[in-house]
Structure formats: structure tokens, C-alpha cells
């Protein structure tokens, strides 16, 4: 490409093309390697197909370089490399998103490049366009009108805006934009010299633009219609310099927006989704919220080609390609992208200034307006600066008609810029140009600021949203920590290998307690409350988390967590509980470690795919952990504690409240799982307590009056320090003095057993629930234990049977 005789213009163009090729080569190389990074092993199937696209891109622009050197020796040397970079970047991104679209885009790029080369043979004054402006425009309008009759949609559904057959489709509204620009510049440059009055001058153009917009409205293509209005305004303003043109357009657009808002559903939805996207993130504003999440996931330097999840955003290849690029190349990439587009516009406007006649000046400026407006509309839409308009990003988005049209525009700009001598036509009113350039600069800066806002400043905040599907995706590639019982027997495990990791629940009866983690249904139970440890976001060194996010875009491997549960005892408890609805807790009364926590009914989290949707509606509420989230009237279960008073003289409410307070009935236990809120202090008759609260209260009798803080999570296994103890979240407090507690326990002792017990039936209003409280005696030499059984319904005998059995097996080694 570089030979000594090349002119400075040729040299510049070739060198920039080579740098662009290096960039795209690196992009392709990363895309090839990306599966290895994702799965963290070299033994993967690599992506190769996009190299076809890269090779064809290189060949096409080598040819384009050759032909433009020959045909347009004095062209602007920047336009071709800038467009080459953009179209290559877009094409490779499309390959990455979907190789079927990639191959089509590559074919369209080939056609577009050939047409670009053909255009370079047009006579430099472009008089042919000027002469046939009406024929060109009429054919464009006719084709667009045909879509109303014969329109199809290549995807088989959706709006019928395409013409074609045999898998080749054209969207006539794309070339129509270009034909409109050509017509307007030809008409205005012919007429402006004759001093007509303003309105007679505009009438034909108003007729044409009105017709075009009516056609688009009939097709419900509101995005393109607004592009037309804006292009028309800018060209008219540049050509006439009359500011009322701008004013009129602002008024018309505002009116159209208002009318649309009140009468067209799509417009109202779009505007609403724009103003308040967080109100309906899974409905109408799904696209924009997903777009912002993707931009946030890109952050500063992006996840790397092939390493993000841009396919989560609907129509990522056309409307949201900017988002896809933002996710994979980050703020650095999109900033470069926006600057590249701005440079194309700047060089185009420079060509307009240097154009030797009015026609070419207005034409070049109009082409820039077309490219600039469309770019700003769609990038602004992706960044939530503007309501979403489904237009394409020129050069980058998927779409043959769009790519072809932008390449024709590029060809015309190259021809107009090809001026050996610098003899520009007189510019009588430069002010509109300055104004448009200023507006453009302002928009670009605003776009960059909005981009940094979502990518860096709001990024971390957005990524932690629960509707960020990336967490569920990373769960497939990074092992989640296991949940173990106190003897390191696994309860919940991650199985499979990178790419197919999935959660296995080995003991489904514990599901109300341990919960689940699922890509669709989210998380519940301990899987939810311990998520940060299990996902490796807590307990790992900050530096490791930072590096893994940088390298792989995922958290580091998750940490194993050890619970205080004893699976052996747990199995017995579940067996004893059988089909009774209720809960059981067995707790070490001295340390607060919970050995058994059972809740019935349960569900099988291994079958969440099938049952997940109906689970939440199940009248038996198996999702609720009755042991800590269920609250029940205590009824006569509190009777043993009332014995601390002299019952003969009666107990007043104040004494009761103080007693309940010291038993912990008015405080929610602090344990690493979601618990029911405690009753208001002072509540006596409407008091409801959870089985966990009741076990803490019962524990005082087996622990010399001390109210112990419960624990269900014992330790977490960190890579550097091994098992780290996770202490209880609460302090132990003395509920009443040891002598009284021991006395109360001894009063309830039963024969031949080292434990006390008390059974109650809380026949309380309409709820009936049966409690069993039991625990080791104060003089018991082994581990002090306390058990609480709660059964929904009036069945104290069952409760007692279950409780006694459980305590018996717990105290006999």
C-alpha cells in the first residue's frame, strides 16, 4: 500500500487504513480466544468464522484504497479510513452477536464497497444527480409506497417495511433519506439565487417531505419520520439561514410528540419508558434498562470482544449495537467510536465549506446532517438521553439498506471533497453553519458525559440490580460455593464444569431453610442471604475480586459455607415431622448453634424449572421457612415462664411485658437469614412469635437463665486463611437469674429422662397451633440442648411425641 511515489493524501489514507486493520485484527483475535477466557481452560472450541468477515473487509478496503487513489486524487484522506474502521467494527460486532447476521452483513459490505468504487467514477460536479432529482426522488417515494402494498418483514413478523424476495430485502426508507437530501440540495441551490418569497420557495419541498412523512406514518415508522423532519430542517436552515425554520420545527416536533403521546400507544410507551424506566424494568422499559445494564457492565475498558453478554439486549445487532460495543469495549471504546463519527462529520462539513458550488455545499452538509442526526438519535436513545427511536447507527448497525445508503453518502462526500484547487463558492450566511457545528459539538459532549455516567459512575449500582441477568450467566462459568453441614457433609453443591455449572440440592427437605438459586426465579433462603460468600464477592481478597472482574467479568470462585446443622439429626427431625405442617428447631442452648431446623411442607428445588412458577401460588406456602418466618400465637406455651411469679397474687400486664421482653419476644433474632419481624413491645393478647424466638426463650431454662444468640452459619472457607468463624450477630443476655431458671426447668422434668418438657395447645382465636418446648436439665453433663416443635392445627399430642423423640435421639450419643 505504501510506495515512495504516493502523494501525502494517499499515504495518510493507507497508513490510517493499516492502523484500522490492526485494530480489527486484534478484535478478531480476542474474539477467537474468548471462549478460553470464559471457561478458564484452553480446551474449548474457539470462534473462527468471523475471520471470513475480517479477510473480506481487508480485501474490500484495499481495493477501495486503490480505486480512490486513482479516481479521486485530491479527496479527503480521512473519510475512507474512518468509515472503514466503523464498518469493520460494526461488522465484527455483528459476527460476535450472531454469525448468521455476520455473514449477511459481510455480503452487504461487499456490495456497498463495490458501489462506493462505482460512485467514484461519477463526474465530479455531480450534475447528473442535480438533473434527475425528480426522477430519483419519485422512484424513492414509489418504492416506499410499494411497501404498504407488498411490504414484508425478513423475520416473518413485525412491521412490513421491506421489499424483496428470495432472502434479499431492501428497506426503501433508507435510500429515501439520501434521495431527499439530494433533491433538497438540488432544488434549493437552483432556486435560492432567484429571489422568490419564502413560502412559494418552500412549497414544493413541503409537499415532498409531507408525502414522505405520510408514507412513513402509514408504516408506523416514527423513528425514520423524525429523522426526515430533522434532516429537512437542518438543510433548510443551512441553505436559507432563516432561524424561524428551527423554531417551526421545534414547535412541530413538540406538537407531534404530544399528539403521539395521547393518541399512539407506541409513542406513549416509548416516552414513558424514557422518562421512568425503573417503573417497569421487565415490561416496556426492558430494552432501555437492559441497555443501561450492558453499558454498566462494560465499565471503563469493557469486558472484551466475546466476553460480555450483549445478546441479552433485544435487537442488539441493529438498534442496540452501540450498547453491545459499550459492553465489550467499554467507555474507552465508545468514546473512540463517538470521536470517529464526529471526525467523519467534521471532514464532511469541511468538504461542504470547500465545495465549489452551492449544490455540492448543501449536498455535503445535508449528508452530514443525515449521518449526524441518525447517530445522535440512536446513541442518545441507547443512553437514555432521548426516547428510543428504532433507527440504525450509520456504518455500524446491521442492515443492508442502511449500510448501502451510508456508503453512497460516503462516496458522494469523497467526490465533493476531491477539489484540486481551493476555490470555494461564496458563503453569504455562515452563521447557520456555525450554529449547526456548535449544536453538533454540544450533542457529542453531552453523549460522552451520559456515557461516562452510566458506564462508570452509576455502573456498580446498576450491576447489583437483581434483574441483571449477568449474575446468573456467570454462575454457569464460575463455581458457586457449597453449603455444608457441621460435619462437612454437603447440603447444596455446584456440579458440572465451566459453562455447565448448576446447583444440586442433595437434601431437598431443607429447601425452606437453605432455599435455592435459579436464573429465572432468583434466590431464596440461605442461598440468598449467604449469596455474597457463595458467589465469592465476600471473604475473598479485594484484589482477587478486582482482577477476576477485570480478566473474566465474573466474581472469583465462590466460598464454601459451613452451617451448624447436623444432617443426621436433621433427617430424624424431618422424618418425625412427617406430613405435619409446622416447624422444628433443635438448638445448642449454650452456644446458640442450631442443630436442626425443619419446616414442613417443603419442595424440591432440583425441580424448580418445572414447579417454579406455581410455587409462589401454592396455598401450603412451602417457600416460607416456618421456623423463622412463621409467627404463631404462643398460647399456653408461655405458662412455664409465668411460674417465676407468684401466680396466686396474679400477674399484671406490666410484669408480663417485662417477662416477654426478657424472653426476646419483642426482638427479631439476628441470624444470617431473613426472619419474621417481631411483635411491637407491649403486645400481649395479639402476640405472635416465631419458633426460633420460642427456642431462644426455652433455651433460658436449659442455660441457667441466659438468653443465647442463635447461629446457623458457623464458618466460611477462605482461600488464604482457611475456615473463618462467622460469629453470632447478637449478644447473649441474662433473662433471669440462674437459680430461678434452674428451678423452673426442674419443675418440668420428666421421669427417667435428662430433660424437661412442656406441651401446649394455643387455642387462640381462629388460629390454632400446638407448641412443644423441651430441653436438657440444668445438671445435665452433656451438651445442653433445647427443642421446639410447632405444629399448625390442634395436635399437641403429635407435637409432644415428635419433641420427645427428637430430644431422646439428641441426648443419646
Amino acid at each position, binding site marked *: 500500500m505504501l510506495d515512495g511515489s504516493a502523494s501525502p493524501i494517499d499515504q*495518510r489514507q493507507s*497508513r*490510517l487504513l493499516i*492502523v*484500522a486493520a*490492526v*485494530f480489527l485484527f*486484534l*478484535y478478531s*483475535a*480476542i474474539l477467537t*480466544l*474468548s471462549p*478460553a*477466557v470464559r471457561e*478458564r*481452560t*484452553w480446551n474449548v472450541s474457539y470462534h473462527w468464522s468471523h475471520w471470513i468477515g475480517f479477510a473480506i473487509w481487508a480485501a474490500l478496503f484495499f481495493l477501495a484504497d486503490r480505486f480512490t487513489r486513482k479516481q479521486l486524487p485530491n479527496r479527503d*484522506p*480521512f473519510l475512507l*479510513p*474512518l468509515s472503514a*474502521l466503523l464498518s469493520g467494527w460494526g461488522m465484527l460486532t455483528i459476527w460476535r452477536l450472531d454469525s448468521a447476521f455476520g455473514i449477511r452483513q459481510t455480503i452487504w459490505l461487499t456490495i456497498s464497497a463495490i458501489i462506493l468504487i462505482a460512485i467514484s467514477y461519477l463526474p465530479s460536479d455531480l450534475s447528473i444527480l442535480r438533473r434527475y432529482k425528480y426522477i430519483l426522488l419519485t422512484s424513492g417515494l414509489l418504492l416506499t409506497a410499494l411497501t404498504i402494498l407488498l411490504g414484508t418483514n425478513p423475520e416473518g413478523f413485525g412491521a412490513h417495511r421491506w421489499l424483496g424476495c428470495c432472502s434479499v430485502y431492501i428497506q426503501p426508507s433508507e435510500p429515501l433519506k439520501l434521495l431527499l437530501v439530494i433533491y433538497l440540495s438540488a432544488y434549493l441551490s437552483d432556486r435560492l439565487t432567484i429571489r422568490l418569497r419564502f413560502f412559494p420557495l418552500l412549497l414544493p419541498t413541503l409537499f415532498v417531505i409531507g408525502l414522505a412523512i405520510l408514507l412513513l406514518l402509514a408504516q408506523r415508522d416514527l423513528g425514520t419520520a423524525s429523522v426526515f423532519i430533522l434532516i429537512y430542517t437542518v438543510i433548510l436552515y443551512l441553505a436559507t439561514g432563516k432561524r424561524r425554520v428551527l423554531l417551526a420545527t421545534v414547535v412541530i416536533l413538540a406538537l407531534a410528540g404530544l399528539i403521539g403521546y395521547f393518541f399512539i400507544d407506541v409513542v406513549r410507551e416509548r416516552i414513558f419508558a424514557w422518562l421512568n424506566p425503573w417503573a417497569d424494568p421487565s415490561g416496556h422499559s426492558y430494552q432501555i434498562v437492559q441497555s443501561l445494564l450492558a453499558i454498566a457492565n462494560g465499565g471503563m*475498558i*469493557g469486558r*472484551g*470482544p466475546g*466476553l460480555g453478554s450483549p445478546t441479552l439486549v433485544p435487537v442488539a445487532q441493529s438498534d442496540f449495537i452501540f450498547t453491545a460495543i459499550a459492553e465489550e*469495549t467499554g467507555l*474507552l*471504546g465508545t468514546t*473512540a467510536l463517538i*470521536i*470517529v463519527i464526529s*471526525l467523519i462529520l467534521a471532514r464532511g462539513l469541511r468538504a461542504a*465549506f*470547500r465545495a465549489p458550488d452551492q449544490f455540492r455545499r448543501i449536498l455535503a452538509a445535508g449528508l452530514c446532517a443525515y449521518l449526524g442526526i441518525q447517530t445522535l438519535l440512536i446513541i442518545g436513545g441507547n443512553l437514555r438521553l432521548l426516547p428510543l427511536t428504532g433507527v440504525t447507527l450509520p456504518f455500524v448497525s446491521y442492515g443492508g439498506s442502511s449500510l448501502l445508503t451510508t456508503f453512497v453518502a460516503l462516496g458522494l462526500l469523497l467526490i465533493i471533497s476531491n477539489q484540486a484547487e481551493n476555490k*470555494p463558492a*461564496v*458563503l453569504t450566511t*455562515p452563521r447557520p453553519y456555525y450554529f449547526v457545528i456548535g449544536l453538533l459539538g454540544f450533542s457529542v459532549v453531552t453523549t460522552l458525559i451520559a456515557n461516562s455516567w452510566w458506564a462508570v459512575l452509576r455502573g456498580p449500582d446498576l450491576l447489583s440490580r437483581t434483574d441483571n441477568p449477568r449474575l446468573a450467566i456467570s454462575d454457569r462459568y464460575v463455581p458457586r460455593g457449597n453449603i455444608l453441614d457441621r460435619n462437612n457433609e454437603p447440603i447444596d453443591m455446584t456440579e458440572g464444569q465451566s459453562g455447565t455449572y448448576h446447583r444440586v440440592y442433595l437434601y431437598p427437605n431443607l429447601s425452606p431453610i437453605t432455599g435455592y438459586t435459579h436464573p429465572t426465579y432468583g434466590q431464596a433462603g440461605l442461598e440468598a442471604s449467604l449469596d455474597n460468600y457463595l458467589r465469592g464477592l465476600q471473604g475473598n481478597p479485594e484484589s482477587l475480586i478486582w482482577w477476576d472482574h*477485570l*480478566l*473474566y467479568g465474573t466474581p472469583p470462585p465462590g466460598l464454601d459455607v459451613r452451617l451448624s446443622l447436623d444432617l443426621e439429626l436433621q433427617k430424624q427431625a424431618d422424618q418425625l415431622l412427617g406430613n405435619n405442617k409446622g416447624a422444628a428447631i433443635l438448638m445448642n442452648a449454650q452456644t446458640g448453634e442450631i442443630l436442626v431446623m425443619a419446616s414442613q411442607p417443603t419442595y424440591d428445588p432440583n425441580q424448580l424449572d418445572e414447579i417454579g412458577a406455581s410455587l409462589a401460588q401454592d396455598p401450603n406456602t412451602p417457600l416460607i421457612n416456618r421456623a423463622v418466618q412463621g409467627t404463631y400465637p404462643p398460647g399456653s406455651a408461655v405458662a412455664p415462664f409465668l411460674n417465676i411469679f407468684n401466680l396466686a397474687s396474679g400477674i399484671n400486664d406490666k410484669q408480663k411485658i417485662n417477662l416477654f421482653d426478657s424472653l426476646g419476644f419483642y426482638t427479631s433474632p439476628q441470624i444470617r437469614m431473613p426472619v419474621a419481624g417481631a411483635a411491637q413491645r407491649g403486645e400481649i393478647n395479639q402476640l405472635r412469635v416465631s419458633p426460633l424466638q420460642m427456642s431462644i426463650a426455652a433455651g433460658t431454662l436449659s442455660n441457667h437463665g441466659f438468653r443465647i444468640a442463635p447461629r446457623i452459619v458457623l464458618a466460611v472457607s477462605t482461600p488464604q486463611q482457611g475456615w473463618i468463624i462467622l460469629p453470632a450477630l447478637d449478644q447473649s443476655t441474662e433473662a433471669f437469674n440462674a437459680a430461678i431458671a434452674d428451678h423452673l426447668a426442674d419443675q418440668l422434668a420428666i421421669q427417667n429422662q435428662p430433660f424437661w418438657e412442656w406441651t401446649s395447645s394455643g387455642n387462640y382465636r381462629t388460629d390454632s397451633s400446638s407448641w412443644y418446648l423441651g430441653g436438657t436439665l440444668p445438671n445435665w453433663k452433656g451438651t445442653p440442648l433445647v427443642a421446639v416443635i410447632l405444629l399448625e392445627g390442634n395436635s399437641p399430642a403429635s407435637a409432644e411425641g415428635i419433641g420427645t423423640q427428637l430430644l431422646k435421639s439428641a441426648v443419646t450419643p
Partner: protein
Amino acid sequence: MSGFIVLALRLLMAAAVYIFLGWALWTIWLDLRQEAQGALAHRFPAIRLEVRTRNRILASRTFSKSEIILGRNPECDISINDESTSAQHARLSYHHNQWWVEDLSSTNGTKLNKEKLTVPTVLTSDDEIQCGKTKVIVSMNGDVSSSPTQRL
């Protein structure tokens, strides 16, 4: 391991796109500088003006500006001490590759080669501009001088 290699490639890729941009912007900047200098050194024929009354040469100067004002006012580029000349009488300016003369609504009018000047008119060598009674002879000998000029 793959993560580190790809991270290096990602950084190289970002570097490549910014080298592309940096290079483009650098050459555009060089262009601009060259054009600014070219504009400074923009060449146009020097103009020599000879002021005469009744065939007596009063003054003769060569100008290297793109705009020259003739008039009685001492601040004019050519100051003419003549009652029949207005304070700012006529303007010579260079644009569209030509020197032009126009009357600045003077009391007694300006004549070019004995004919009354109504619209800005192109000057050639040996033209005679008459401001009141004073004549100014234009000569452009093809010499070049440099002077700032306004251009797009």
C-alpha cells in the same frame, strides 16, 4: 492464563484505536497549521497607488494589505488633502482573486477611468480612480507580497 493474554490483547486493541484517532487528529492539526501558514502567505498581486493632482505626483505607495481606504481623513491609508474629497471616499479591496474598488457614498462621487462608479468594480493595472479632483493611478506589476486575508 488465557485471561491475562486476552487482557493484554484488549489493552493493545484499545491502544490501536487511539493510535488511529491520535494519528488522524495529529495530521489534521498539521494540515490546519499548514493551511494557516498558507493563508498568511496567501499570494496576491501587490498594488501600487500614485496620487496625482494636475499631473503632479503627490505620493506613491505600494500596499501589502487586502483593504485600502482612500479619503481626506488623515487616518485613511491614502490621505488626500483635497476639499472635494470626502473623509472616507473609496475602498479598494482584494477578494475573489481580484482587486475591487467601490465608492463609500462620497459627496462628489468616484470615477473609474472617467466613468462614475456605482457598483464595486474590478481593477486592472493603469486604471485611473478619481476622488473629487484628485486622481489615483493603479499599477499592478505582478509582484507578490504577503498579507493576511480572510478566507474560509
